[in-house]
Structures are given as C-alpha cells and as structure tokens.
C-alpha cells in the first residue's frame, strides 16, 4: 500500500480497505461513480462475490498490514444472492467486534453496512462518515507498532554482536 494517501503527504490520511459484494454494494459503488457522486478516496475496494466470502482473516490481515479501518458492504437481509451469506457475515462481524475490543482496537474501525445496488448515495454517505470516524480515532499503525515492539530486542542483539567482536579480536 505504498501509493497510499498516507504516504504521499506529510499529513496522515485514513486508509480503508473496503470489501464489497458483487451483487449489491459493488454495483452501488459503480452507480455512485456513474452518477458522478463525490466521496473521499481513502478506500481501496476489493470486490468479492458475497459478503459471506469475507473471511475474518482478511479483515485482521488488512489491519495488521496498515489499514486504519475496514468497510464491509453486503446485500440487505433477505436479499443475499446466495440466500445466507450476509447473515454469516453479520454473525462473524458481531464476534469479531468483541475480539477487536479485546485486542485494543476500537471496534468502530470495522464497519458493516447493507447497501443495495440502487443505493449509490449510501456508499457516499457511509464512506464519508467512516473517513470522519477514522480521522477522529487516528491512525492504527499496526506495522509501526510491530516495529516498535521488536525494538526491545535490537539493543541486546547489538550488545551480543559487540561482545562477539571483542572475542574475535582477543582470539587474534
């Protein structure tokens, strides 16, 4: 995600990974585009066939690799092209929120919305709201945190290497 808005400017911009279902939300995003609606461009949209295909691993991986938020769009209840997929997503989402909370990540960083193919304006509203929300929450910055955490081992490694260096010197 090197071409992200976050890295092109000095000021931080929220990065969102959006998983949109092929039948409803992705079509709605298309409609928003065709209708020339304007909304913040902070999201990378990934089209999936159904919100039920969105493995919670995808969401955690997006966060771990530098996304500040994840937006999931699926069909309204009773409208899933595959009958049950959106319910599966809803249930996973409810438990995932608890896990995120336990891991010190504001659950609101992950948002689930039902957006039908006709609701281009809802894509715009949700996207705008989510960017505002993430701006208020600030960066998640997981990759930076991982680096920070592992810095506590560096000093020690240097010390060992220095000691080995001395031993080598003594040996000669």
């Amino acid at each position: 995600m090197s071409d992200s808005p976050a890295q092109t400017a000095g000021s931080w911009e929220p990065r969102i990974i959006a998983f949109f279902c092929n039948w409803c939300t992705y079509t709605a995003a298309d409609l928003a585009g065709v209708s020339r609606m304007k909304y913040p461009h902070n999201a990378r949209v990934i089209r999936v066939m159904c919100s039920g295909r969105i493995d919670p691993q995808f969401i955690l991986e997006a966060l771990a690799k530098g996304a500040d938020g994840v937006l999931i769009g699926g069909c309204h209840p009773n409208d899933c092209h595959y009958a049950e997929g959106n319910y599966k997503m809803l249930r996973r989402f409810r438990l995932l929120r608890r896990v995120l909370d336990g891991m010190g990540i504001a659950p609101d960083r992950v948002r689930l919305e039902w957006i039908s193919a006709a609701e281009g304006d809802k894509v715009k509203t949700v996207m705008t709201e989510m960017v505002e929300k993430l701006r208020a929450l600030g960066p998640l910055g997981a990759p930076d945190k991982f680096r920070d955490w592992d810095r506590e081992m560096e000093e020690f490694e240097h010390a060992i290497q220095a000691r080995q260096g001395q031993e080598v010197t003594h040996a000669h």
Partner: protein
Amino acid sequence: MPTRPKIGIYWCASCGGCEETVVDLAEDILGVVEKVDIVFWPVAMDFKKKDVEALPDLSLLATLLNGAVRSSEQEEMVRMLRRKSKYMIAFGSCAHTGGIPGLANQFSREHILRYVYEETPTTINNEKTRPQLRFAEADREVDLPEFRHVVRSLDQVVDVDYYIPGCPPTPNITRSALTALLDGRLPPKGTVLAPDIALCDECPRKATKPADLAFAEFNRPHQKLLDPSLCFLAQGIICMGPSTRSGCDAQCTKGNMPCTGCFGGTTRVKDQGAKMLSSLCANLVPKEEEAIDQVLDGLPDPIGTLYRYGLAKSLLRRRMDLPMETLPPAG
C-alpha cells in the same frame, strides 16, 4: 567409531511439559539416546552454558527448543543455540506459536509486574519492592534478565528450521520427527512436522459431525454432561478441531474433552482464531443482532478460547493499545 550427532534441549518460557514428553518416549528414548550425544539439557543433565559456548558453531545437529521467549536471558540463549545448531527446532506450542504464555500479550508489562509483585492475594510487599536489572552490594554486582514487553514465538526471535507442535507434543510425532532428523529424511525448511490436515480427520467422532451445524447456544464443557461419541460441535461445545492440525491421535476428543487447538492451524490457516471464529459464527442459528449477541455471550473469553495457544503468532500478535514503558533505572 564415528561420532554421534550432538543434540541440545533447552527451555524458555514454558511449564516443563515438553521436557516431560521427551521422557514420555519411554523405552524409545533409549533408541534415541543410543544414536545421539545430548550435550545440553539443563532439566536433566549437568552441562553448563559455557560448555555449549565452547563448542564450535554448527557443531550441534539440532536444538529442540521449547517455551516462548519473554526475557533477555532467553533471547541470549536462543541466539547462542541458534549459532551452535545446524537445525533449530521449535518444540511444542509455546516455541511454535507462543502458547499459553502468549496470552500475556493481552496485558502490559507494568500490569503483570504490579499484579505479581504487589496484588496477588498471597503477596505482602508493603515496600512495593520489584526485581531490579542490576543490584550492587558490597563488592558484588548481580544482574537479572529483563522482562520483555512482548511474548514471542521462537521464530520471532531467531530463524527456525522445523516445528514440532503440541502442548506438549505427543510421543508419536516427537518420535517420528526425531527419526526423520537422524535419518536425514527432512522435509523443506519451515515445515511443521505433523500431518497437514484438520484434527477432525482423525477424530473418532467425525462421522457424527452434522453437515448442517447450527448453534442456538454455546456450552462450556463443565456446564453439560458430554456425550462420549457425538461430535462436540453438535453438542454446542466449542471444539477447535476444524481449525487445528491433526497428528495428536485425537487424544483430547477420545478422552471426552474438546480440542483446544494446541497443534496450531494447517498451512491453509493464517490465523487460527479468526478461522475458527469464521467457522463457528457462520453456523449460528439467529439472524438478528440482538439474538446473535445473546448466543455469543456463551463465549465469555473469545481471545482465550480462539487464540489459546496462538496469540503471540496471530496476525495482531498483541493488544494494540499497550504502552512500551522503560524500566526504572537500575538502583
């Protein structure tokens, strides 16, 4: 007489169960001992750190290392053993994925030290004394290892060649891994030395796993009389089998207890907890938020259940909002 390959066995943040499992090889251990020279095994044999340090680099065929890595001393030891060993083998869940000690990644270092040294019900420590990194008295100076902020799996500290999973690894997979090592029949580097298929595959209850699982509620094992032959999931009991690697001979489910996931995921699983969450939740009965939440209340500790052995090695590794404070200067 050709020299026998040298083996080291070492422990870091672990309970000792992995050491026990080596002994559990029973008479087979004699076969192993005949073929190798154990040059380092602090639990069982009187070799010192300096004995291993004196050996040339790469002079050990392998080190079997159990335990997660939490202190500066453990980091130093695993780095030293890595240098001395041709193969570094993560032995057991803690070295493999962080194990039970990895659950401490939900808490800050300060929280843990404060609780342990000041707040446990059996502690009286009015002066709030804490261990110091260095302590000088008269003409002596004593060092203590530093307690790190983060619990790490072995491969988050040094390069690891193979993994033997399990809490503890079962004798059968330990035996076959040692045999493969001694016979030089090793798979590609990085392999987990256990079958790459879910536990359900070898579970005797497999045939009773319903195709259409439906959880109206979750029960914990102590809340229900468990049917000894029916799939746990069909009984509303969380069994980590579907997202866990097999190879343990389904010892827990055969003993009428559900799988808790100690072998970690298969190669297709990136995050064991998320994968299990996915599978469990897909099969809940309710379709509305409130009713779903009610069923989920039956899972009071989702992280401790879904990531019991794998939090340190999970995608998120550690609670994200914990501070990285520095220890007070040595006094």
